[in-house]
């Protein structure tokens, strides 16, 4: 078999695994903070409604977290099985960052998740709130480490060569490499948006079935409000992240914008079909000088085209379309969040308004919009790094393992079948859970019933 085909198969398999995995942490990182908020609201009000809300969303969280754990175990093995060259070449940097993630985050989350899910009647309220907080902190810490590693792969810094190996010269530079602050913020906001749309979407789904459910209306409002604040922040951070990419990975920007030739006053393409054979864009609809204006903040600014980086350039079409899909979805989410904020404002008698049914349907339809946007974003950033695995240090083709076509094919099939089944079951259960609503839960009746703080 051709080595390029084998490489493509290995990449497809790893891409599938990591794309499936990322769905779940993206949701749990921010959903954990929603839980913490619900838990604190219950502690402060003592209201059974907040407890029911908290319980409902811990169930959603538990399923999502479990999916994240089991798909994450797959990732830890696949570094070795699919990309042995990665660890051989940059293991002295990638390994410790992953180890820190396991040590400082994974155990913390997993252990306190047990206390959070099953310990409400077994520990005092303050300890239970503490466990909820620690789970939230743990998920965020894990995002910190994995994004440090990913960012280092994009924009490596702080490494040195000693004894013929690549090692970390300065760990602070490795961790806080040039793209890390932007990528981390961008991802945390993406997680916040994903979770707020899931919360809003599933609440809307419940309201369609039970318009008088005040708990669902309250969580709809929470989700919508958080999204309305985070969405514009994401626009700003996304812009900064783009400028950072232009500085450190200009080839990626050239591919995202389908700029084939270096030039001044480059137009912004709203739509086009990139044609790699003829190195031009067909059916282009463009805003004159738009790209120069956005990226250089100057309508006559010069932008480097793909010609400047050949032959080490990423493929244009996937980046071009994924980027537009992400921005388009983000814009829709922003508009929807603002409209929702207005529609759920308080009425004349200080009661929360119920949005019209069409809007509830829209929110329900947008439940997993954050996932779609996040996946598009990751496709842009990861495919945009090609042909490098670690920019300028290690090529993807040099890291691929010796697994045979048959092994890769068989395992890819097994993964696809398992993932499809898991995803369908996951979505069905989530819809089912939220459709039933939070209901009312009896407040504490365990040994700590009176110890509410």
């Amino acid at each position: 078999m051709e080595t390029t085909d084998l490489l493509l198969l290995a990449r497809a398999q790893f891409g599938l695994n990591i794309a499936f995995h990322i769905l779940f942490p993206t949701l749990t990182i921010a959903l954990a903070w929603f839980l913490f908020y619900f838990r604190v609201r219950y502690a402060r009000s003592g209201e059974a409604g907040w407890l029911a809300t908290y319980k409902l969303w811990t169930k959603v969280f538990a399923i999502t977290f479990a999916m994240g754990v089991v798909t994450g175990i797959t990732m830890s093995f696949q570094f070795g099985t699919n990309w042995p060259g990665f660890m051989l070449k940059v293991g002295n940097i990638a390994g410790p960052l992953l180890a820190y993630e396991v040590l400082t985050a994974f155990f913390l989350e997993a252990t306190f998740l047990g206390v959070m899910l099953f310990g409400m009647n077994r520990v005092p309220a303050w300890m239970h709130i503490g466990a909820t907080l620690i789970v939230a902190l743990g998920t965020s810490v894990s995002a910190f480490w994995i994004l440090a590693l990913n960012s280092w792969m994009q924009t490596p810094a702080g490494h040195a060569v000693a004894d013929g190996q690549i090692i970390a010269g300065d760990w602070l530079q490795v961790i806080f490499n040039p793209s890390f602050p932007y990528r981390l913020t961008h991802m945390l906001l993406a997680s916040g948006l994903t979770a707020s749309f899931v919360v809003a979407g599933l609440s809307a789904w419940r309201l369609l079935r039970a318009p008088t459910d005040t708990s669902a209306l309250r969580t709809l409002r929470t989700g919508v409000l958080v999204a309305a604040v985070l969405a514009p922040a994401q626009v700003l951070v996304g812009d900064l992240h783009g400028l950072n990419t232009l500085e450190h990975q200009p080839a990626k920007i050239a591919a995202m914008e389908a700029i084939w030739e270096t030039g001044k006053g480059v137009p912004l393409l709203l739509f086009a079909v990139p044609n790699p054979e003829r190195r031009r864009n067909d059916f282009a609809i463009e805003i004159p000088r738009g790209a120069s204006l956005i990226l250089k903040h100057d309508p006559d600014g010069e932008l480097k085209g793909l010609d400047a980086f050949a032959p080490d350039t990423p493929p244009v079409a996937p980046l071009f379309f994924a980027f537009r899909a992400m921005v388009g979805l983000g814009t829709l989410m922003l508009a929807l969040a603002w409209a929702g904020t207005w529609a759920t404002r308080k009425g004349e008698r200080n009661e929360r308004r119920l949005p019209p049914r069409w809007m509830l349907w829209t929110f329900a339809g947008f439940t997993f919009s954050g996932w779609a946007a996040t996946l598009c974003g990751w496709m842009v950033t990861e495919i945009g790094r090609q042909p490098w695995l670690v920019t300028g240090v290690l090529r993807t083709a040099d890291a691929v393992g010796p697994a045979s076509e048959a092994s890769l094919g068989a395992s890819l099939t097994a993964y696809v079948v398992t993932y499809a089944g898991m995803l369908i079951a996951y979505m069905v259960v989530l819809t089912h859970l939220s459709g039933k609503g939070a209901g009312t839960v009896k407040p504490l009746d365990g040994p700590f019933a009176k110890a509410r703080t």
Partner: protein
Amino acid sequence: MALDLPLIFAALMGVSVLLYVVLDGYDLGVGMLMPAADEREQELMVASIGPFWDANETWLVLGVGLLLVAFPRAHGLILGALYLPVVAMLVGLMLRGAAFELRVKAEGWHRELWNWLFWAGSFLASFAQGLMLGRYITGFESGFGYYVFALLVGASLCGGYVLLGAAWLVLRAEGTLQKKALTWARWGLLWVALGVVLVSLATPLVSQTVLGKWFDFPKTLALMLLPLATLAAWISVWRSTGRRDNDESGPEWTPFAGAVAIFVLAFAGLAYSLFPYLVMDRLTVWEAAAHPSALIFVLGGALVVMPFLLAYTVFAYRVFRGKVRAGLYE
């Protein structure tokens, strides 16, 4: 004297793997025992592992993580050679993890389906781990005999996990479920005996190095303490499960402690056989080790974090100590 970092990391990795095997072993074992229990008992069994299984599986991530960090050369070699069993294990772990969470929310035949998948996933993961062990200790040699051997080790490890799971239930359950668990433990114990004997016979046959290590008088006399202690632990579990069966009182933790002792001793024997090799007769811990700068950075973090990690693990087990009750899950 400078720190022997590869040695330290080999020890850390060994401890992680051992902790994984014992901890996830009992919850995998409970998963495999699901079909043998009735509906009410299944709820208790699931509730008994609910708060722990996530964290238990994290030890696997740490074990593999340390292999990755400290011995990148061995990581690629070992996992590459075990490609398909690794995939099978991962699919198994994913199935059971998802099934564990989803079954609680399902009703009717859906629930039955998830129960079945929970069992199947637990079994697949355990069997695949046994296969990996069987392939690993024979240095990934190919040939019909080696594959049969790996299959037998796979079955034995399932038995071992069943033993751990059953002993865990003896500790956490009461009444009829506890009685059943005593019987299950004995079945597991028989498979363990087969597995331990097989591995003990096979490793010296496969490798001259291992043979030389164990049959080197007078060291052999001291080394024989290991199999003797294993035998003693085995007998104590057999007797304690029998005694309790006859309603004679005895500490409920003896079967679990004995089962853990068997695993620890077997692990120690295996570690002695292999050391200093990470891949039998091919790659030593020092040859496979990563650069000291990476190791020292991780070691520093591990030393700071480990005490906390152990403390809150103990804390979690204390919070959920005692007999498990149905409905705890809510």
